[in-house]
C-alpha cells in the first residue's frame, strides 16, 4: 500500500498561534528491574493549522510522544503547555477535560462503539462535554455530512466499510472543534485506495484550517504532511518540512 507520491508541492498554509509547547520532556517506564527511557529530552512546538507527521521505528518513543501530545499521559520531567495550560501537572479528570475539548483522536483500529450507530458514536465527546441533546444531534449530523457520510448516519459500525468507519472516527474527532486532531496510523487498517481517500480527507481538513498530527511509520503517509518529525531512541532526529 503505497499511494502515489505527490506530483506537485502542496501549498503550505500560514501557521497560527502556538498550541503545543514541549520543552525537555522525558518519560521513564519501570519494566520490572529495568528502567526504560522512552523519551530522553524532547522539545517541540506546534502551531495552529500545522499538518505534522511524527515518524520513527518502533521503540523510538513515537507512541509515548503521541500519548503525551494527546494528554493521555504526563511527562516524567520537562514542560508541556497546551494552549498555555500546564499539562504536566494535571490530574486525570483535568486531562480528561482537555482531551474532551481540545483533542480529537483517530485510531488505527477506528475504536468505534460497536453497538451504537454512527450518529451516536460521533455524539460521544459532546455527551461527555455536556452539550444539550438538540445541539448535539445537529452538530453530530452536520459533522457526518462534512466527512461524506450524510447517508450513513444511522448505520452501525458493522454495517459500514473500513473507510466509512474511519470517516465516522474522524467525524467523532472533529465534532468538538478541537485544537488538534491526533491520528495514530490512520490508514494502517485500510487498503491503499481507501487510505488515499482518507489522506485526501485529511488534506481537506487541513485546508479548512484544522491542526493535524499524524503518527505513522510509513513514508508515503508522512509525505502528505507539511512537516515531519523523526524520532530515534527517544530523541528528535530531525524536524523539518516534508519536501
Amino acid at each position, binding site marked *: 500500500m503505497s499511494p502515489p507520491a505527490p506530483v506537485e508541492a502542496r501549498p503550505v498554509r500560514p501557521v497560527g498561534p502556538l498550541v503545543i509547547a514541549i520543552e525537555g520532556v522525558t518519560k521513564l517506564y519501570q519494566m520490572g528491574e529495568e528502567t526504560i527511557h522512552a523519551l530522553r529530552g524532547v522539545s517541540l512546538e506546534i502551531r495552529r493549522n500545522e499538518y505534522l507527521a511524527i515518524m520513527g521505528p518502533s521503540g523510538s518513543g513515537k507512541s509515548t510522544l503521541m*500519548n503525551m501530545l494527546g494528554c493521555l499521559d504526563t511527562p516524567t520531567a520537562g514542560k508541556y503547555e497546551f494552549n498555555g495550560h500546564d499539562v504536566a501537572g494535571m490530574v486525570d479528570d483535568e486531562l480528561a477535560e482537555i*482531551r474532551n475539548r481540545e483533542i480529537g483522536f483517530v485510531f488505527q483500529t477506528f475504536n468505534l462503539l460497536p*453497538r*451504537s450507530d454512527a450518529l451516536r458514536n460521533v455524539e460521544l*465527546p459532546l455527551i461527555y462535554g455536556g452539550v444539550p441533546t438538540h445541539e448535539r444531534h445537529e452538530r453530530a449530523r452536520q459533522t457526518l455530512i462534512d466527512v461524506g457520510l450524510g447517508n450513513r448516519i444511522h448505520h452501525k459500525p458493522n454495517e459500514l466499510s473500513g473507510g466509512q468507519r474511519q470517516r465516522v472516527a474522524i467525524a467523532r474527532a472533529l465534532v*468538538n472543534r478541537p485544537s488538534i486532531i491526533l491520528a495514530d496510523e490512520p490508514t494502517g487498517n485500510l487498503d491503499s485506495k481507501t487510505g488515499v481517500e482518507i489522506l485526501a480527507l485529511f488534506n481537506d481538513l487541513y485546508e479548512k484550517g484544522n491542526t493535524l498530527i499524524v503518527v505513522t511509520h510509513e513514508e508515503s503517509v508522512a509525505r502528505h504532511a507539511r512537516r515531519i518529525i523523526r524520532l530515534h531512541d527517544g530523541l528528535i532526529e530531525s524536524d523539518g518540512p516534508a519536501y
Partner: protein
Amino acid sequence: MNEILRMAFGALGVNKLRSFLTMSGITIGVFSVIGVMTAVSALRGSIEVGLSFLGSNMFQFSRFPAFGVNGNDEHKYLARRRFTLDQAQRYIEFMAGTADVICLKAFANGNPVVQASYGNHKTTKRVTFGGTNQYFLKANQFEIGTGRNFTPEDMDLVRPVAIIGQDIITKLFPSENPMGKLIKANERTYTVIGTFASKGTMFGSSEDNIIMIPITRFLMDFGAEKYSVNIATEAPSQQVYNATMEKGITAMRVARGLRPEQDNDFEIYSNDTLIAAFAKVADVISSGALIISAIALLAAGVGIMNIMLVSVTERTKEIGVRKAVGARKILILTQFLVESVVLSVTGGLVGILLGTIAGDVLASLLSAQIIFPWGWATAGVTVCSAIGVVFGMYPAWKAASLDPIEALRFE
C-alpha cells in the same frame, strides 16, 4: 444522567441471557421473601378481620397449646392427663346456670384412619371422624342441612347415629337420600340422622368431609382410653365472658381434682389467644424467610459483582475510547454502577411481582383476602438498589480507574 441510563440499558440488552441469569438470582431471593410475607400478611389480615377459629365468646380446654409446641416441651404436655368424659360431665354440672352451651368433642385424627362405606360406595381414605354433642353446631359454626341435630338422649343412650357432611353425601349417596341409611365405618354401623350444610374449605382442607357421632358412642366404639375430650364453652354474652372463663377454670380444676397449690394441668384458649399464637408462628415463618432471602440475596450480589467484573474486562477497549474522548472518572463509575443497580432492581421487581402472585395464590387457597405488600415491596426495591450499589462499586471503580493508554491497547 439520561444518557448514562440509556448506555446502561443498551449494554445490558447486548447480553440478554447473561443479564437474565444474573437477575434471576436476585429474583429468587426477593421472590421467596415477598411470597412468604404476602401469604403471611394476607392470612394475618384475614384472621384479624373476622376469621374465627372458635365461635364468638367461646373458650376451650386442651392438653396442648394451639400452636408451636416444640420438641423440648412436648414431653411436658404429653405427661398431662387426658380430659375424660367423666371430667367433662362433672365440668358441665359445675357450670350449669353459668354457661349451658358446652361442646364436647373428640376426633379419631388418624388413630385409627377412618374410611366409611355404604354398599359399594366408599369415602376418601381419610375422613374427619369424631364424637360430639348437640352443641357442636354452635361451637364450630356448622348448620344442619337436612335431618336433625344430636339430642341429649343420643348421648345418654349411646345411640349409633351419625351426621354427615356434603363430601360424604357425594361419595356414598350419589343418587340416594342418605337419611335413615346405615353407613359403615371401621366395621361399625351408624344410622344417618342428619346432614351438615356445606362449609367449604378452611386452611386448604375441606370441612365437608366429616362424619360425627355422639361422643359417648365414639368413646365406646373406638376406646375411651385413647382419646382426650376437647371441651368448648360459650359464655352467654361478651359482658360475662371473662367471668365465665374464670369460673370455667375453677370448675375444670375441681373436675380434674387439682389441689389449690397445683398449677393448671391444661391449656385454655380463646379466639384472642389463638390469634396471638398464630401471630407467633407467623413471626417465626417470616423471620425464617427473611434469613433465607438474605443469604440468597448475598449470593446473588456476589453473582452481580462477578458478572460486572467480566463485563468491565470485556469492555476495556470501550472504556479506553470513552476516556480518550474525555469521560471523567465519575461518569465511567456511574455508568457501571447504574448497570449493576438496573440489574438488581429489575431482578427485584420481577421477584416482587412473582412473589406477590405466589403469596396471594397461596393466601386465596387458604381462603384469605389477597393483598399487595407495599411495605415489603418498598423494602425489596431499597435492598436491591443497595445490593446493586454495594456489589457494583468495586467493578465500577475498577473500570473508572483504568489507564486509558492500557485500555486502548487491550485486545
